[in-house]
């Protein structure tokens, strides 16, 4: 047992961090709202860095890495709030031609989650659906879709879709089950990165902002909010990393409980930290200009995907005793 990052894992995170710093500074991320959330050139650059193909075998153009490495990558993407259907395209690599290379953008939804809100409708080439019976490629020409003119998260544009049919089968129930687990952990990892970014931006603000002739971070009421943000993030980190490792290592036993706990705690860390960050930023926290609301809104969006907090608490409870 050695539950620390290997030097290769650290290097991987560092490489993706550099990519995000160079290609996804916040002005660029915000501008992506104007193009449906995805810029094709940037998407290909992510593909070239291995974001989608990472877990494929080397023969298939991948790096033969595990879910643990994928989670570490998604954590960094979450920090930078990179938009787009990243998790779905990553899951589709190897199944949908062109997904791994970044040539086709793949979106998806859970078929149980009526009303059907299809994310990134103008950016995706392929829409997948997951349900208990398997994976399906939806025939979008037969969907009726009403654009959402005012999406909650400006970086998650959506359509309300009607008449969602299964379409062509792309996987058996076992594939669907595995996608749900992988999807929950990768989404959890992304949320973890968001939670950490929120802590950092709030700590930085609390050191800068002065009231009563002192930095607000010197007031215990603020300091303790920030301490709780940090603690929540670290607990979520342990849960997410452990679940990812569990998915890679069958000898550790069935992963369902660890995965549910990971998504649950990471989702809570991101939403609670975003709300706390809003409070710490005062009036600035309620402005469009400050990034906090973009994190809060994304956290709410992601909390509805690959199982809500309540769903996952129920899963854990069902596995107890």
């Amino acid at each position, binding site marked *: 047992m050695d539950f620390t990052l290997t030097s290769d894992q650290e290097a991987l995170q560092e490489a993706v961090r550099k990519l995000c710093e160079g290609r996804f500074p916040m002005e660029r991320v915000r501008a992506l709202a104007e193009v449906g959330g995805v810029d094709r050139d940037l998407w290909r650059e992510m593909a070239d860095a291995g974001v989608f193909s990472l877990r494929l075998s080397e023969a298939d153009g991948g790096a033969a890495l595990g879910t643990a490495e994928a989670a570490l990558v998604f954590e960094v993407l979450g920090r930078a709030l990179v938009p787009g259907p990243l998790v779905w395209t990553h899951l589709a690599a190897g199944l949908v031609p062109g997904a791994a290379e970044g040539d086709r953008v793949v979106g998806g939804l859970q078929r149980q989650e009526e009303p059907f809100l299809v994310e990134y409708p103008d950016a995706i080439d392929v829409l997948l659906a997951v349900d208990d019976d398997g994976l399906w490629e939806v025939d979008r020409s037969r969907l009726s879709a009403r654009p959402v003119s005012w999406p909650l998260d400006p970086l998650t544009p959506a359509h309300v879709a009607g008449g969602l049919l299964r379409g062509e089968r792309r996987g058996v129930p076992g594939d669907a089950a595995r996608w749900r687990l992988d999807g929950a952990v990768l989404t959890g990892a992304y949320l973890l990165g968001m939670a950490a970014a929120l802590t950092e931006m709030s*700590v930085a603000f609390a050191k800068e902002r002065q009231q009563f002739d002192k930095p607000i971070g*010197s007031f215990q009421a603020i300091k303790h909010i920030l301490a709780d943000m940090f603690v929540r993030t670290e607990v979520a980190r342990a849960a997410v*990393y452990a679940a990812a490792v569990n998915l890679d290592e069958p000898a550790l036993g069935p992963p369902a409980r660890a995965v549910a706990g990971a998504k649950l705690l990471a989702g809570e860390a991101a939403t609670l930290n975003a709300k706390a960050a809003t409070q710490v930023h005062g009036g600035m926290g309620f402005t469009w200009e400050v990034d906090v609301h973009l994190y809060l809104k994304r956290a709410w969006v992601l909390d509805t995907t690959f199982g809500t907090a309540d769903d996952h608490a129920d899963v854990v409870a069902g596995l107890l005793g």
Partner: protein
Amino acid sequence: MDLLWTEEDERFRAELRAWIDQALPKLPAATKREDWDARRERDTTWQRMLYDAGYAGINWPADFGGRGAALSEQLVFYEEITTAGAPDVGVNFVGLLHAGPTIIAEAADDQRARHLPAILKGEEVWCQGFSEPSAGSDLASLRTRAVRDGDDYVINGQKIWTSFAQVSDYCELLVRTDPEAPKHTGITWLILPMDTPGVDVRPLRTVIGSSEFSELYLDDVRVPVANRVGAENDGWRVAMVTFSFERGTSLVSEMAEARRQLDELVKVAKVVTRGSATAWDDVGLRREIGHAAAELDALWNMVKRTVSEAARTGVPGVGASVVKLYYTELIQRIGDLALRVLDRASLSLDDVFDHSGHFVEERLRVLALTIAAGSSQIQRNIIGERILGLPR
């Protein structure tokens, strides 16, 4: 990142389990909480059994008679001890987890030779005389005075909240030796034999109704200068060396036990009925229990992370304060859930069914965890200032 136990760890687990299986039946049964002589007898007997089997001082270096186990082996140890329902450190808490490690780190060879083997064998029980009526969170403001007189210190003052004082042989005592110096620099760490004339132990009654801790009155108590650990006026540093230790490691067995208790609670919830359904059929309650279980799982993994970091870097990471803060608040929420499951059975500390009384007693006991060993507020200050770098 690797969460698999090594073959060595697994071999250790198998050996330990086999040993516990045959050793546990030989141990006298647990006694009433308030029967302190019997509690001391049982805890020290178990300690002696561990010693004879080579499991004492699982976390102590081999040079000082401990097992010198790898940190991962320590986790295996705590897991197995709790799974089997074997005793926790009990009255040996201070000796094994605080005074002992301090002596290892800071004491002279003759002091080590005299006390370390005795602690490991369960022959010496220790208590911690740090807190005072006006020095709690602000421990460095302590006032108990020690004045040099020849080869002795003469001590006058009062300590409070001294756990296990009524059954202790020795006390790790913090005294003020230089009242003029800034508060952190006038403190000295002494070994006080509890049978010294002038030491008066007056048990205090806790919310559980028993006396886990006492007041300690010190009236012209003479302690030889030879009992000093570290230099005069260097006691604050000596005490701090092992504080992170107390915060981190001492909670590990407690957490292993909490995992077991939560499983027990689920079993109880599945059988207690309300009207026509069981408590477990209550969707809201069940969901909260699932939530708490996820948090406890995550904290256990956090311990593994902290332990792995410590094994790699040699210093305990940020984990200790984080785990202390989160765990102690979580275990109180779990206690609340237990009371909700028990419903009216929670009126009784006697068992109404199964071990119902134990859950009620635990709910009371864990109230102390967010206060002792650095309150939750102090932990948040530490995290805010030392980890996040926020101004004071």
